[in-house]
């Protein structure tokens, strides 16, 4: 994996602000982004990425290529939580195993966004329909996770209800904003896209820097908690992304994606959710411990993907595709 890639990833302002946030926390600075500003940034990012994706999709249309990509994305979104659940079950109780499985089956929008800006820096193109892929991958893992927990989890008071299940999966605020903005982008097309471009495109990277500054603080705060997790969760949080990435790369190559789209699909599968899924799990599986699944995705998998994952996956793809 060549150093140039790592460097050009690290010299990306958003990533550097992530480090600044971590540094602030580690040297005991009083720097913090008070509630609800981070919510504002994430809302902005989800709305913008969704809307831009919708506009792109409106341009490209539903080509076979696009359909194949979405199918692959859906497949991974269902397969990952299933296989990881049974791995996790060996060490964790049903609820925690289900929550972690859902976390890793779903996606991290910000990792995806970092990947797109990484591609932008490399001058590698990617399709707007990948955002649709991301949107599609948000919810299935939530459904699988909750369903599995309900079916295998004996005697935990709450009865199973499809309506609750679907609401937890799709009425989740972040999912709704992402999908809603995507649909709005689709409906309004290029005219809408042009009208909002200064907001959704031009200032986007700046807002991303602010959000990652907060992410740096927030993940560093949890570094201390990692030790208490024990070895299994730590190993899981670093190895499973690699496995999922490998499968995703194979899949991407099989359905003949371009290098850009391939990286994005890979990142989607390798990333773990820390916005939509934790919110949903908190409602649906209160017995599961957020200290476990949030720490794993936020303090280990997210930094791992942002710092090492991106250049690593890219270099592998470069090798294979050429």
């Amino acid at each position: 994996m060549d150093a140039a890639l790592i460097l050009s990833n690290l010299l990306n302002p958003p990533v550097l602000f992530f480090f600044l946030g971590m540094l602030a926390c580690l040297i005991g600075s009083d720097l913090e982004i008070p509630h609800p500003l981070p919510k504002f940034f994430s809302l902005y990012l989800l709305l913008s990425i969704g809307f831009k994706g919708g506009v792109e999709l409106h341009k490209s249309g539903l080509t076979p290529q696009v359909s194949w990509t979405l199918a692959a994305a859906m497949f991974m979104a269902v397969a990952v939580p299933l296989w990881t659940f049974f791995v996790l079950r060996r060490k964790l109780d049903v609820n925690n195993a289900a929550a972690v499985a859902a976390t890793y089956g779903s996606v991290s929008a910000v990792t995806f966004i970092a990947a797109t800006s990484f591609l932008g820096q490399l001058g590698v193109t990617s399709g707007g329909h990948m955002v649709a892929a991301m949107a599609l991958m948000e919810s299935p893992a939530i459904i699988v996770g909750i369903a599995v927990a309900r079916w295998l989890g004996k005697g935990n008071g709450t009865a199973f209800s499809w309506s609750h299940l679907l609401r937890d999966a799709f009425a989740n605020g972040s999912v709704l904003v992402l999908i809603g903005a995507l649909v709005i982008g689709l409906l309004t097309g290029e005219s809408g896209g042009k009208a909002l471009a200064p907001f959704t495109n031009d200032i986007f990277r700046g807002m991303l820097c602010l959000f990652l500054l907060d992410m740096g603080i927030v993940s560093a705060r949890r570094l201390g908690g990692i030790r208490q997790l024990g070895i299994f969760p730590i190993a899981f949080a670093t190895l499973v992304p690699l496995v999922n990435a490998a499968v995703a790369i194979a899949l991407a190559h099989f359905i003949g994606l371009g290098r850009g789209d391939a990286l994005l699909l890979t990142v989607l599968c390798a990333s773990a959710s820390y916005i939509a899924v934790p919110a949903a799990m908190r409602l649906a599986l209160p017995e599961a411990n957020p200290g476990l699944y949030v720490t794993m995705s936020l303090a280990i998998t997210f930094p791992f993907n942002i710092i090492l994952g991106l250049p690593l996956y890219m270099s592998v793809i470069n090798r294979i595709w050429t």
Partner: protein
Amino acid sequence: MKHVKRLEIIIDAPELPTLLALLRAKGVSGYTVISPVTGSGGRGYRRNDEPGGGSGNACVLTAVSNEQAEEVIESIRPVLKRRGGICLVTDAQLVIH
């Protein structure tokens, strides 16, 4: 001034609607909500700093008649059992318009 029980209920923020519905069901129409609040308890530390969400608690303050108190408390017990949280009860006097 009227002798009342001052109930202070701290629960997981997403449970708030459920709790308020329970209170209203018991005929409690007066309450004050402070949300989000953070805290620590049996289920660990809730930093409420998760990006775009957070693990905040809500604090519900309600003054109920001494007669109501018992019944209200019993009605919220299951919520505390299922989702954690506490309820603090103090004797107080209510001054109202």
